[in-house]
Structures are given as structure tokens and as C-alpha cells.
């Protein structure tokens, strides 16, 4: 198996990739503006939904339930979809999926395809695979058109071109659509895209889509969108190929009532997005007469195997965690080196890659927890991040690494009250050469990484517990205990423990 997630295996570490982006003032301004707008819209529509937390609870439970019976629900979907005239294909990895889709397009004699935005196709590098086979892929979502014509990369799960402003979009459209007089009003730019794509919608005979939801009970597929480019791709071509991760399944038709309330509010801050399409197999005389679904694993079963991070697969790709993340809001999506960016990208990408690549991503977070707060299916992203950091450290670090040794020592100290109290007393002595006017500004060795960017208060003369104990004995303020004795006791304790 060759699992690939866009070009993440060759990407620089997050920390390296982020540096030049942080110096791009225009990009940061564009990302800040876009995420501010979506967040405030989301806040309003979530505030107007009195049962929001109940919907989150139900959404999370439905997804967790489905994952526990994933094999059964996938088989149920396959049966229902096939009975309705669709054809289901299974792809173990990115290459499998690309081979299947390229083969299908060739089988129907297609030389071009129209695509509604699909994250999964970016994950497997479908456009490149089609290009290799001489098949031209036209992206049709406005933001994807901007990214594709600009030779750029997507930087947001829902709004891939958030990093571009109107004048940058105008520049791309002027050059690539041959419209030298195009203005920079978003309305005019949108009209240019409408005109540019209309001819393709009416002409191209093969459509490619992703899937927001697959309904096991009925074999139906659901696409949630705004522009109508999705409906065009799903309805006008004669052949439709939909690619979906195996985790996109939900058990029953009525489960949609939960997700169609959670997703639009979280993704674009709308009570409902302009268009949701659901279809089941092939309908005589209405829409494509040939329908194929490609079910993709590409590392997902590996995530399923880890009970502590399985919740990652509950994601419905709304992007709310990106908009609220203090790290994403500074760097934008390109620093994550993958089509999946932001907090969810930081847990999805390295896990799909079986923790062999993209190992810097679990560290691209402050663990502030904002992503968990907004997640419509309650994925505890900080918990998963910490779990993955542990996996990276365990797999990467040798036992003699200074940081690993320091952590082991710290663990010994923090697990015993006597050792901890002794360490506090020792710290008071050890700190004196580094303290000036109550602050430590320049710690030596590894600890210097901390004081390089922030100052540290000196340790207080006495802890609360010491003060409390002494107060109970004497009823007055006591002085500090003997530091030398404390130091010896601590050294002995740590020795014993190791």
C-alpha cells in the first residue's frame, strides 16, 4: 500500500514552512479578514439555534456509532446503491482510487471532466493522475477555479482561496480568462467565472464529485454546496463518479436532519446553504445515467485502529476549527503542507500517513481548546493532539535524548508529593544566579528555549502549603525551611526512583 495525502510526505516541517508565511503581511490580512467574517456569521446562526448542543451531541453519537459498525454499514450502502443502479468500487489507497477513476473516464471515452470541489480528490492527487492520462480536469467551485487557474494550492477546507484578495483574483482571471479589462468588484469577478464555466457545464460529459454523506440504508449520496456548480456537475453530465472516504457513511436517511443543521452553520455561518443535493443510484430521464462511487481507505482503517484517536474520523469537514484556531489564523493553510489544514489537518494528515510523515503537525497548536468548542461533532482535537505528540515522542526519541531524560526526571518529581516539595525548595536555591529584580530572562541550555520568547517569574520564597503548615503551628508568618536539607532529600529521592 502506498498511502499519500496530497504532497504532505515531501512537505517541510510546519515550523519551517510557517516562517515565510508569517512575514507575508497581505496573506495574513486576507486570512484574518476571512476567518473573522465566517466566525462572526457562525456565532449569530449558532446563537439562533436553541438546541445547538443537543444537535452536536446527536451528531457526535451518530458518527461514533457508525464507526463502531463501519464494515456493516459500508456493505449495506454498497447493496442499496447497487440495487438503485449505481456501481460501487473500493480503493485501498490513493493509487488504487486514481487508477479506478482514470479507467472509468477512459471507459466512457471522456477527455475532460468537470469537478465539484472534493477534498478527497486533492488528498489522492486526482487532477495530476487525470492529467497524466491526458484527461483535463476543470474545477468549478469559484475558489477552486481561483486556485487552479493561479497554479496555487488550497489553503482552507471550505474556502480554498481565503488567502487571496480581490485584486489578486482579478489578476489571475485577467491573465487566464483573457479578460484584460476585468474590474476587481467581487460581483464582476463572480460573473466572469459564471460565464467561463457555463459552456463547460453544458458540454463536458463526465462529472466528478466528492460526498458529504453516504446514507447506508438507502444508498444515497449527499452534496452540500452554495454556488450551484455542484448541481451542474451532479445533474448535467451523462456519467458521474463520486469519491468518498469510508468514514463519510451515516446509518439512515433521517440522520441527515442532524447533519444538515450542523454543517452549514459551522462551515459558512448560514442557517442552510443554498443547495443540498441527495440522489440514489440512477434515475431514468433525470441526471447521469451512469453512476459510480469510489470508497477510499488510504489510511483511514489505521486511524480506526487507535481507540484514542478514532474520533478523528467523525469529521464532517466544516472548517470551523480552522477559523477559530489562533495558529491557523496567523499562518493560513499552506504551512500545514497538506490539503487538510488547521487543527483537524494537524491530526488527520499525520495519522493517515501512519505517523511516519508530517510529524511536526501535532505540535502546530497551542492546545487552547477553541477547536473542540466549535466542533459540530465534538472531536476533542486537543486530546488527540496530545496523544499524537506522545506517539511521535515515543517513536522518535531515544532514551538518552536530553529532553527525554529531563521529562523522565520531571515525571519522577511530579508523581511524588515529597519529591515535588523538595524540588520546589531546591529550585529556590538553584535559581539565584539567574534571577534579576524578580524575573528570569535568560535560562541556560534547553530551558533557554522558553526564556528566548518570554520571561519567567522567580520562584516565590514560600509555597502556599508551606505557609499554611507553618501558620497552623505558630499562628504567624514563618521563614523558609533549610534549603540544603531539601536539596539532599530531592537528589536521593530522584535516585531511588530512577
Amino acid at each position: 500500500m502506498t498511502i499519500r495525502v496530497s504532497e504532505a510526505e515531501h512537505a517541510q516541517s510546519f515550523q519551517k514552512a510557517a516562517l515565510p508565511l508569517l512575514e507575508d503581511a497581505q496573506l495574513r490580512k486576507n486570512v484574518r479578514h476571512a476567518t473573522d467574517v465566517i466566525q462572526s456569521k457562525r456565532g449569530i446562526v449558532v446563537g439562533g439555534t436553541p438546541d445547538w448542543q443537543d444537535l452536536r451531541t446527536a451528531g457526535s453519537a451518530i458518527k461514533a456509532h457508525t464507526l463502531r459498525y463501519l464494515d456493516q454499514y459500508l456493505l449495506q450502502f454498497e447493496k442499496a446503491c447497487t440495487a438503485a443502479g449505481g456501481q460501487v468500487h473500493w480503493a485501498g489507497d490513493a493509487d488504487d482510487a486514481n487508477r479506478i477513476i482514470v479507467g472509468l473516464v477512459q471507459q466512457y471515452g471522456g477527455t475532460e471532466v468537470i469537478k465539484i470541489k472534493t477534498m478527497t480528490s486533492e488528498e489522492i492527487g486526482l487532477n495530476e493522475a487525470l492529467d497524466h492520462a491526458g484527461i483535463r480536469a476543470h474545477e468549478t467551485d469559484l475558489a477552486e477555479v481561483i486556485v487552479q487557474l493561479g497554479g496555487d494550492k488550497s489553503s482552507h477546507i471550505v474556502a480554498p482561496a481565503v488567502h487571496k484578495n480581490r485584486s489578486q483574483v482579478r489578476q489571475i482571471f485577467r491573465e487566464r480568462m483573457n479578460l484584460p479589462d476585468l474590474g476587481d468588484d467581487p460581483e464582476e469577478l463572480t460573473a466572469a467565472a459564471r460565464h467561463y464555466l457555463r459552456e463547460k457545464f453544458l458540454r463536458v460529459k463526465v462529472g466528478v464529485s466528492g460526498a458529504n454523506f453516504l446514507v447506508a440504508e438507502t444508498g444515497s449520496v449527499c452534496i452540500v454546496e452554495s454556488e450551484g456548480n455542484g448541481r451542474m456537475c451532479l445533474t448535467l453530465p451523462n456519467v458521474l463518479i463520486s469519491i468518498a472516504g469510508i468514514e463519510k457513511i451515516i446509518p439512515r436517511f433521517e440522520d441527515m436532519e442532524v447533519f444538515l443543521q450542523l454543517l452549514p452553520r459551522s462551515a459558512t455561518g448560514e442557517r442552510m446553504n443554498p443547495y443540498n443535493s441527495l440522489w440514489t443510484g440512477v434515475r431514468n430521464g433525470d441526471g447521469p445515467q451512469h453512476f459510480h462511487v469510489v470508497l477510499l481507505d488510504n489510511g483511514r482503517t489505521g486511524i480506526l485502529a487507535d481507540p484514542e484517536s478514532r474520533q478523528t474520523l467523525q469529521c464532517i469537514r466544516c472548517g470551523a476549527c480552522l477559523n477559530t484556531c489562533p495558529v491557523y489564523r496567523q499562518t493560513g493553510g499552506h504551512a500545514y503542507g497538506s490539503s487538510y489544514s488547521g487543527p483537524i489537518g494537524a491530526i488527520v494528515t499525520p495519522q493517515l500517513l501512519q505517523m511516519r510523515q508530517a510529524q511536526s503537525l501535532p505540535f502546530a497548536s497551542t492546545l487552547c481548546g477553541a477547536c473542540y468548542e466549535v466542533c459540530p461533532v465534538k472531536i476533542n482535537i486537543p486530546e488527540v493532539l496530545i496523544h499524537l505528540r506522545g506517539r511521535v515522542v515515543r517513536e522518535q526519541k531515544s532514551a538518552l535524548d536530553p529532553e527525554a531524560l529531563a521529562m523522565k526526571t520531571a515525571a519522577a518529581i511530579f508523581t511524588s508529593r515529597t519529591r515535588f516539595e523538595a524540588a520546589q525548595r531546591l529550585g529556590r536555591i538553584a535559581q539565584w544566579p539567574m534571577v534579576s529584580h524578580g524575573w528570569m530572562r535568560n535560562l541556560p541550555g534547553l530551558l533557554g528555549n522558553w526564556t528566548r520568547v518570554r520571561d519567567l517569574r522567580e520562584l516565590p520564597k514560600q509555597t502556599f502549603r508551606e505557609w499554611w503548615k507553618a501558620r497552623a503551628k505558630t499562628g504567624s508568618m514563618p521563614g523558609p525551611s533549610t534549603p540544603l536539607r531539601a536539596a539532599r532529600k530531592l537528589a536521593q529521592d530522584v535516585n531511588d526512583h530512577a
Partner: protein
Amino acid sequence: MPDARAAILDRIRASLSADPSAPPAPPADYAAIPRSYIRAGRLTPEARLDLFLDRLRDYDTHVVETNADSLRQTIAVILQEHNQKKVIAADSLPPELLPRDFAFIPEHAVGLDDLNACDGVVTVCAVAIAFTGSIVLTHGPGEGARRLTLVPDRHLCVVRAEQVVETVPEAFDRLLPHATHPLTFISGPSATADIEMTRIRGVHGPRFLDVVLVR
């Protein structure tokens, strides 16, 4: 690719077998999913329709209220106001909807290119949702095939008061018998916010949506 299918199913089963919390059959476990969200609406019929109209307007839908007696006249006025000449009527549309002195083009007579050259289309819907300002098409009689309400620039949809439910779950209850039909949920005209998060009405779907509510 039968090998990939077996391999994926094997991997799933191996991943799940380590999990002792999963009981053997899904249905019982499914019934235990907490569903404390709001299912039934709480508004009076009048308030429900008012909410529906309010939510439609909020997302740029052009709304007209009428009654059964003046429905024909209302539709005629809207078509005239917007200078609609070539208008398609969905097949099996109830004849009492259509103004008599207007030459509608029947749906079955138009190909894709004709559709692209038309001004607008008239349909009914199956269900409408007040809380989200949505109309739902099951593409049954009078609702048109999917492309009919997609390619022309203007969509006029007639909604009867009794079709309007308050909540999304109520809509799904009504849609259940049509679960395997193609379904299209429409909430306002097509839109994008992909350039600087500025909401632009009308990208690829109809740029104008008229809802005529018969109450």
C-alpha cells in the same frame, strides 16, 4: 477491485475487534443515540408562515403572498415585472396555477441548450422549512427534473401554506416516503462568498428565486 474490498473490510474488522465496547448488532445501539434536539415545531400556523417569509427574505429570495383565487394573477404579474418571455412550466404542473394568456413552454419540449436560452421556470415544491427558509424538491409531478430548476436564471416556486413545516426534522418526516428520489434543498438563490467573504448572489444556479406563498 474485489481484492481491495476484502482487504479494506478485513482491516476494519481487525481495527474494531480490539474494541470490546462494541455490542454485536447495530440496531439496538442505534436506538441509544441521544436525540434531545428539537423535533416538533412550537409556533402557531400564522407565526410559522411569517418565520418562513422572514427567513426567505433574509437570503435574498423575492417573496409574494397570495391566495388561491388570485394565484394565477399573481404569477402573471411577477413574470411581467421581470420581463420574462420564454418561461418553462414543469411537466404535470396543476393547470389552475398558470395564467391563461401566457404561452408557457412545456418542460418535455426543451433540450439542454433550449433550457440555457430560457428566461425562467415555474414549479411547485414538496415541502418547505420555515426555520431555515428552505424549499425542498423531490422532483415529482410539477417539480421538474433536476436540471429544470438549475440552468434558467429565474426560478418561480409556488408553495402552499400546508407544505410549510417549522423544523428540519419535521421536513425529514414528510420526505421519508421519497427518500430514494433525487432531492434538492434550495435556500435562496445560488450564492458564493469565496472572494473576501463578500456574499454574491447568483453564481451558477438561478440568480433569482421567487417564492409565491398561497395562504
